[in-house]
């Protein structure tokens, strides 16, 4: 796993973005950028050669699931690994995210260990 990979963290709450960024930094990932919803995130992804997307679900403007769908429809972004970190916990939603092509799903509140495990699992699969 490349520790210098470029990561976009999307969440409408700045505190949650900060927590995720700090946890990523602890795991050795320092090349992170932030966006506060799908509308801001999508053009950043389209223009910014990101290697990994961490997104919340429930956001104003464009939600995380919509962002995920846009990513999967985009020829250049469709293989981008996406981790959903969200409070949305309905079974229907988790199934919908899986169908939309999410690579990992972490429900809030979460621990540093869970985040680490899911990221490692995603890149094991991507790299392997």
């Amino acid at each position, binding site marked *: 796993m490349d520790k210098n990979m470029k990561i976009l963290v999307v969440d409408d709450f700045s505190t949650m973005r900060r927590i995720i960024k*700090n946890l990523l930094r602890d795991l050795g990932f320092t090349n992170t950028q932030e966006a506060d919803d799908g509308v801001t995130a999508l053009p950043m992804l389209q223009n910014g050669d990101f290697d990994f997307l961490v997104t919340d679900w429930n956001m104003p403007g464009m939600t995380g699931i*919509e962002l995920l769908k846009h990513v999967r429809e985009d020829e250049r972004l469709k293989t981008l690994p996406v981790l959903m970190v969200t*409070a949305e916990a309905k079974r229907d939603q*988790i*199934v919908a995210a899986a169908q939309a092509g999410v690579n990992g799903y972490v429900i809030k509140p979460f621990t540093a260990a869970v985040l680490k495990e899911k990221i490692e699992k995603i890149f094991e699969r991507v790299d392997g």
Partner: protein
Amino acid sequence: MASQEVETATEDSFEKIFGDKAKELVSRLENNDVAGAVGLIEDLQKVRDQNLYQEIGRLTRALHESIKNFKLDSNIQGAGSEIDEAHEGLNYVVNMTAKAANKTMDMVDAALPVSKSISIEAADIKQDWNRFLNKELGAADFRDLTKRISVFLDHTEVNTNKLNSNLNEILLAQDFQDLTGQVIQRITTMVTDVESRLVNLVAMAGHVDQMTGIKHKQADAEIIDDNPLKGVGPQINAEDKEDVASDQVDVDDLLSSLGF
């Protein structure tokens, strides 16, 4: 509530009058007193109308009272209504929790390099200290080590003081729980209050419906937006809900059942 008791009383008497008159109507018809029966039907109509007017009057008054209590009156809208107060209160909660979270993270961010530097310096000194214990350290190196230990002790004193002060600040930042808790409790009381007033209004409107025979379409009340693609935020009492994953283990189980 006093008005509730009055209501029940009139409702009883309304139904009693209705029943009595109906019995009388039957007995008059049995005795072939058609004129008397027609008169009774008119009486029944009057009783119903009178009661209906009374109920509508009561409903109107209650609505007026409620609007006054909600302080939704157009004259003071935007300033001090209960809804505005709840809105402001919840904004305060969002701001306070964000402030506390940021404060805590600031303190942690500032503390991490300090504790890291203590750990690095200690590890460094420990190496030479072990050499000294193993009698591997020369006199010049030993003098150097004592100087470094002395510097380390100074650093440690300063650094741990810094850490103490950061930890105290983190502790103090938790005061949001008390302050936001109070605001939320006030809003909870308000919502319960508003709900009970609305239930009263619905009960009164129910009497009017009963007397006029109006039936409402049930479906109207049950339009719920359950599009799962729209986020709904955290689940409260997730353990009690069947359609909700209560923790990460549940999520992982569900995903692995889907072939993840």
